């Protein structure tokens, strides 16, 4: 075959001014100015051994294992390739006798004190030190002396254990804690031969990201309690998947052995998680293995449940659906399943004429938030200004917090935070503005035209991170605030941060509210007796809806309740039929993160008991209800989905199997514009209730994971220290928190980061339930606090 070179030299792209060409072992390698030699070598698969170097953290040159030879003016010189930037014309050799001698010497020194307990070490088999001792070591050590012995292991947090004698002082965990997580709670202590990684006495390494240090530890010094002594790496089978604990959608690899989930590890997806995971996402696989899982369908008889067959249970559900009055069937939830689950339940809802459906539980924003120009995590972190009108990102979307924090630390973006109390991102914000709940929308127009803020907004792209910060404040306030920002900065794009893993997928693929019938409206209708069949699709309104009274009335008012869930949740225990659902790791499919990025989730183990994927249940019900359905496999659904949903093309699901997924834009059915709310002024004797989530709470997936179950805190009400004096209560004593609806007793704590007049109560912690004070028809909640 002949090819004709038609390249016109004038069409060549302009020479990249940062392009650098170097030679590694005789190969020409293109790199960019500022790259380190080790990264350039990685790009062409010339492996240089290393322990401390990590591409997502700054180089420190601690371990000296990555020495290479670089041609210098006076002959070859040894340099540390993780600290030496590339330069044009540089000649690097990684395979000379001198390099080999340096590598062998370093390994020998590292092993001088490293115990040879590989057979009982969790890292053995996947250990960079072990592997590189084989591949780059001398094979034998000249050291015959007794090695160091330390007390072992030391728990440095509830989750992480430290075996000090294995540590090679690579600085990865301490660098991660300081640079990436911003929680410098571990540090090198002592000096010289006695140097150790240690926490401060009585201050554990209580970082939300502590599990990452275990993953990046190049030896077995740091181990996590859920995996310690559970398996050997060569017994693990793994598949790449996506975490669906929150809507960030971090890439993970799901590892199991003997049909039991044993570990998740972060996978580096450049547009999303950079290899990091939060501890909740990393360790809540334990709930999948929990003995409390539902294993067979349950039908209520009297006050208790009796196990039944799937056919009986499904038939009883189908019978109820068949005999329900028109427009009296409601579906709540779906945001915890896959896109395929949501699509099939949406299809079932359409076929059965279900008008009431909502994937959110009155704790998010209307799906119209997707109709604005959409941002991605990368676009938010790329440059310009990020305006936070969102819940505490560190508590709810921890890995997004890492990305935003990184962008601020590297001075790429500036954060403007508008919130009712300080959050995890406050100390990284360029401006952090306190606006009492219900007042943000009113304050924004004047705020954003202040000279310095206006100049900042005009200087580059603007992304608004929009979510529902305060659960005791109606969504309309959040939407009003967003509208107010967009009125000043019309070019801004929006990154919606809604709750639950696949909330965007569920809303986009058929479970968005129709005609403004959102979860609260549905529950209200149910309370009035207008719902004949309430289907809870992995939803637990009694635990999650802020107006718990509404949830109680809604569940009680429904004539028949079907719960499809992995556990017998508070709401499921009120159901007439409970169907066991396959959990994360037990089913294949795709999921959509907060950006609209579709990635794969995979089945790694057999579903618990007889539990089934949600989509299968929907298909069965459709058949029982007499609707034509040709769906027998996941591929059938994906085929139908790509035909039915614009933007969800046939390639999407295929591409989604690949690591970074693909961002699709699906416009959900437009909901009725939400009414604008005006919060009345607060009586100065009262406090405005601020109810927001923390990472660890009493959520079912957390309390059924033994390693996380104890991380929830006691419920407290937090107020400003001066307010504490005003209330006349001592720190930690019980106070009465009340309004016209109810009254509860909580311990009070002073916190100077809470503005005066605001009472902050973390959601769903151990103790009295503050939701008793919340009523959905009041757009904000004011409470009295009295000492007892």
């Amino acid at each position, binding site marked *: 075959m002949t090819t004709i070179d038609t390249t016109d030299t004038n069409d060549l792209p302009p020479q990249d001014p940062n392009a650098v060409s170097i030679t590694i072992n005789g190969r020409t390698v293109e790199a960019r100015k500022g790259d380190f030699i080790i990264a350039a070598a990685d790009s062409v698969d010339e492996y240089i051994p290393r322990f401390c170097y990590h591409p997502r953290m700054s180089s420190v040159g601690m371990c000296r294992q990555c020495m290479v030879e670089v041609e210098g003016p006076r002959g070859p010189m040894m340099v540390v390739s993780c600290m030496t930037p590339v330069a044009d014309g540089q000649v690097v050799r990684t395979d000379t006798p001198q390099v080999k001698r340096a590598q062998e010497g370093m390994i020998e020194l590292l092993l001088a004190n490293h115990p040879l307990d590989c057979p009982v070490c969790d890292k053995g088999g996947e250990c960079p030190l072990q592997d590189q001792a084989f591949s780059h070591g001398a094979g034998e050590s000249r050291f015959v002396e007794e090695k160091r012995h330390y007390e072992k292991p030391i728990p440095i947090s509830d989750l992480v254990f430290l075996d000090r004698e294995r540590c090679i002082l690579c600085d990865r965990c301490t660098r991660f804690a*300081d640079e990436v997580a911003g929680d410098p709670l571990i540090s090198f202590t002592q000096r010289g031969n006695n140097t150790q990684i240690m926490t*401060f*006495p009585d201050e554990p390494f209580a970082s939300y990201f502590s599990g990452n240090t275990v993953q990046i530890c190049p030896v077995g010094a740091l181990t996590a309690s859920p995996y310690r002594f559970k398996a050997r790496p060569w017994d693990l089978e793994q598949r790449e998947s996506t975490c669906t604990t929150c809507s960030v959608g971090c890439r993970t690899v799901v590892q199991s052995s003997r049909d039991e989930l044993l570990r998740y590890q972060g996978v580096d997806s450049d547009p999303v998680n950079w290899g990091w995971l939060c501890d909740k996402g990393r360790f809540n696989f334990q709930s999948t293995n929990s003995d409390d899982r539902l294993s067979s369908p349950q039908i209520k008889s009297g006050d208790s449940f009796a196990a039944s067959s799937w056919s009986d249970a499904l038939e009883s559900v189908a019978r109820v659906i068949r005999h329900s009055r028109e427009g009296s069937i409601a579906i709540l939830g779906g945001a915890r399943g896959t896109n395929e689950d949501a699509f099939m339940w949406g299809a079932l809802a359409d076929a059965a004429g279900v008008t009431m459906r909502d994937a959110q539980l009155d704790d998010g924003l209307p799906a119209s938030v997707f109709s604005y120009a959409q941002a991605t995590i990368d676009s938010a972190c790329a440059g310009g200004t990020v305006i936070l009108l969102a819940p505490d990102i560190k508590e709810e979307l921890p890995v997004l917090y890492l990305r935003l924090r990184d962008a601020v630390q590297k001075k790429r973006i500036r954060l403007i935070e508008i919130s009712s109390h300080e959050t995890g991102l406050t100390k990284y914000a360029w401006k952090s503005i306190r606006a009492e709940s219900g007042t943000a929308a009113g304050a924004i127009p004047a705020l954003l035209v202040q000279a310095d803020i206006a100049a900042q907004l005009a200087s580059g792209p603007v992304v608004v991170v929009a979510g529902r910060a305060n659960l005791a404040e109606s969504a309309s306030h959040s939407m009003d605030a967003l509208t107010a920002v967009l009125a000043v900065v019309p070019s801004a794009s929006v990154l919606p941060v809604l709750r639950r893993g696949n909330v965007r997928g569920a809303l986009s693929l058929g479970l968005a509210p129709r005609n403004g019938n959102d979860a609260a409206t549905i529950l209200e209708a149910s309370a009035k007796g207008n719902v004949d069949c309430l289907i809870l699709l992995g939803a637990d309104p009694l635990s999650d809806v802020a107006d718990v009274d509404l949830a109680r009335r809604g569940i009680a008012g429904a004539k028949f309740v079907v719960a499809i869930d992995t556990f017998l949740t508070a709401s499921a225990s009120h159901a007439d039929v409970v169907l066991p659902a396959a959990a994360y790791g037990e089913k294949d499919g795709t999921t959509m993160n907060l950006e609209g990025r579709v990635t794969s989730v995979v089945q790694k183990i057999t579903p618990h008991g007889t539990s089934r994927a949600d989509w299968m249940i929907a298909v069965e019900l459709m058949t029982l209800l007499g609707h034509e359905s040709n769906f027998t496999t996941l591929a059938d659904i994906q085929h139908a989905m790509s035909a039915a949903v614009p933007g969800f093309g046939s390639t999407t699901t295929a591409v989604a199997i690949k690591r970074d997924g693909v961002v699709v834009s699906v416009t959900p059915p437009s909901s009725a514009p939400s009414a604008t709310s005006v919060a009345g002024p607060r009586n100065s004797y009262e406090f405005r209730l601020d109810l927001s989530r923390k990472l660890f709470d009493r959520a079912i997936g957390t309390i059924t994971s033994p390693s996380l179950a104890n991380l929830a805190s006691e419920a407290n009400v937090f107020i400003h220290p001066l307010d504490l004096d005003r209330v006349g209560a001592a720190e930690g004593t019980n106070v009465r928190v009340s309004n016209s609806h109810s009254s509860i007793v909580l311990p009070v704590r002073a916190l100077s980061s809470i503005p005066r007049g605001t009472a902050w109560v973390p959601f769903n912690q151990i103790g009295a339930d503050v939701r008793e004070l919340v009523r959905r028809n009041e757009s904000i909640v004011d409470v009295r606090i009295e000492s007892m």
Partner: protein
Amino acid sequence: MARLTEENVRLAREIIGRYPKPRSATIPLLHLAQEQDGYVTNEAMSHIGELVGASSAEVFGTASFYEMFKFEPVGKYLINICGTMSCALLGAEELMHHAEERLGIKMGSTTADGKITLERAECQAACTEAPCLQVNYRYRYRVTPDQLDSLIDDLSAGNLSSEIPAHGVVASVRQHIPADRAVGAVAPELVTENPVWLDGKAAL
């Protein structure tokens, strides 16, 4: 015995004011804490962390690098007997044994009355005057067992209190820098760029 006293917090702020970045004051503040309590307490390290904007673990990491910061109570007088070559050849071991017998304690421990702590030290750079020792880092040269006895007698009787202040006091005269001469702390968020030597990529 705990966090820095109000007076010491005032001094701490003056010390912090001498540096462009508050963290640079960590070690002077650790000396201040050791002067206050005779050793560096955990509470003081947390307090210093708050004052300079570092975590307690970072302060502890820095402090524990240095031998002269003590994290457990030591006596009012810390006697460091040099045990390195020149001193060892000229009778340091005998001196240590003598001190142990005289005080009834082992090297590395403190007398019951909390007056004197014995420590073995590495070379104190007075090899021509061996064997030497330091009392709260004040030298005594060519020490014989008899001289050690009389030193302990003097310390116990308080005869040397003008020359040798209690452990932790670095100098008997405190240096003050007038406010108008202070560099003035720059809040970390206002520092817009790293000094060139902190930018790894500019190194070559």
